[in-house]
């Protein structure tokens, strides 16, 4: 547990040593909000769904930027050349690996809170009092699920070699297929099926239920589903990471696969 906590702390501190407040603000607040506003306005122009549809979808969708931080935290070891030292240490892998994501969850929550504040205060989204807990729960689950995906992306980045592009790509797929901007019913059959395997799909649907005034129970199943999906991605990331490490050790290429 201590190893988990310590790893989380240092991973997060490393993130902040690189970023001073201004770049952090740009990346975690301004950029996601700009993207949110952009799609909300297109949605308004398109007129096929009410504005609240796009506001909720894109507010939850801002969680996708957390994937960058998490994947970078994992892949960054190789880029900085510290991977050999990390793997040669006797500490168990799992707390180190999952510790990377931990504080990013908190970071991601700040992100979504800001987005939610903007859609309520600037765009005038009405969230019923009984739905607030559900909306917050949807945000938390979305963030955790994205962190799980981020861990997998970070591990895969050891093969693909570019976390930024990989994470961007993942962000696009999620925003397109999760129902944030396009109702799942409009997507072709195969694509809609793929959407079920993507984080955020269920959180977005749950959040929309809660904004519509549904009880907590109504969306609980969806949230549990997204949570489970996030866990699956996270574990898959851990498995890939270990496999790559073994392979790299065998082939003598620890600093690059």
């Amino acid at each position, binding site marked *: 547990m201590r190893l988990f906590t310590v790893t989380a702390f240092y991973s997060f501190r490393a993130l902040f040593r690189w970023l001073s407040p201004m770049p952090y603000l740009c990346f975690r607040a301004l950029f996601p909000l*700009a993207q949110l506003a*952009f799609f909300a306005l*297109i949605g308004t122009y*398109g007129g*096929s769904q009410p504005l609240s549809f796009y506001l909720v979808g894109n507010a939850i969708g801002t969680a996708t930027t957390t994937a960058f931080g998490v994947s970078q935290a994992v892949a960054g070891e190789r880029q900085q050349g510290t991977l050999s030292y990390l793997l040669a240490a006797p500490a168990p892998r799992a707390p180190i690996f999952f510790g990377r994501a931990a504080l990013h969850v908190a970071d991601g929550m700040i992100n979504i809170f800001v987005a939610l504040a903007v859609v309520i205060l600037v765009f005038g989204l009405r969230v019923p009092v009984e739905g607030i807990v559900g909306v917050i729960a949807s945000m938390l689950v979305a963030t955790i699920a994205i962190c799980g995906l981020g861990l997998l992306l970070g591990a895969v980045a050891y093969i693909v070699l*570019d976390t930024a592009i990989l994470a961007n*790509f993942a962000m*696009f797929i999620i925003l397109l297929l999760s129902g944030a*901007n*396009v109702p799942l019913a409009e997507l072709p059959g195969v694509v809609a099926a793929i959407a079920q395997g993507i984080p955020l799909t269920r959180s977005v649907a749950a959040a929309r239920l809660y904004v519509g005034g549904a009880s907590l129970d109504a969306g609980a199943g969806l949230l549990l589903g997204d949570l489970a999906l996030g866990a699956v991605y996270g574990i898959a990331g851990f498995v890939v990471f270990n496999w790559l490490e073994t392979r790299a050790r065998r082939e003598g290429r620890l600093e690059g696969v």
Partner: protein
Amino acid sequence: MTAALRIAARSAWVNFQEVAVSGFLLFAVVWQPLFVGVTTMYMLRHRADFDPMYVVVGTALSGIWSTLLFAGSGAISHERWTGTLELLAASPASFFVVIGGKLAGTTIFSLGSLVLAFGIGAVLFGYPVKIAEPGLLALSLVFAAVALWATGVFFAPLAILWRTVGVFLLVFEYPVFALSGFLFPVLLLPNWIVPITNLLPPYWAAVAMHGAASGDLDTPGLIRAWFFLFLTGGVLLFIAHRLFDEVLTRARRAGTLALS
């Protein structure tokens, strides 16, 4: 003048060789427009007056802009990383011309977004994509590329000042899509913002291209749009030229031209 053109052309060629195969370019010219185009096509197709060409043009412009916004700073960051930034800064050649040349090369590359956008509409969605005035659209495309190139050149000097400029530039990606009316009319924006949009070259690029593609803008209207496109672009280039000098002097004072 010929020397400057030679330097610009050579810089474009060097940039092409060095970064043409970069993942970033593929991403900006193909994947991002693919996402934007497909999403927007779904979102707008229920409109009574839906014209797939509107999404095609808007998607192409967004692809060109995304590419150019990051290409300028990317070129400078690449130079810093290869250790050639100091060599360029200490050469007699104008930095403005060198970077302008590099971006010009990238601009040509970025026009691939239009082909992709067309493919989204015609092939992926199977719409009959009609162009009202093909000749005028082609001309508008060339002028639009110039306008977006000028805007990209304007942002490039920031990369000399700040090594981590990429994150700042992110903030200008979607807002320019929105303020320029690439994929929805600027009238949807708050009233106080609308006059600002007229100062942006990408706005006039979008007016010209949407107008020529749909046939909604007559020739005098198109000429007016081209005029303002060049006027606003020219102003930005003038400012960019001064900005390069100023920024280089600051970098020399602060000692930030090298990698560390």
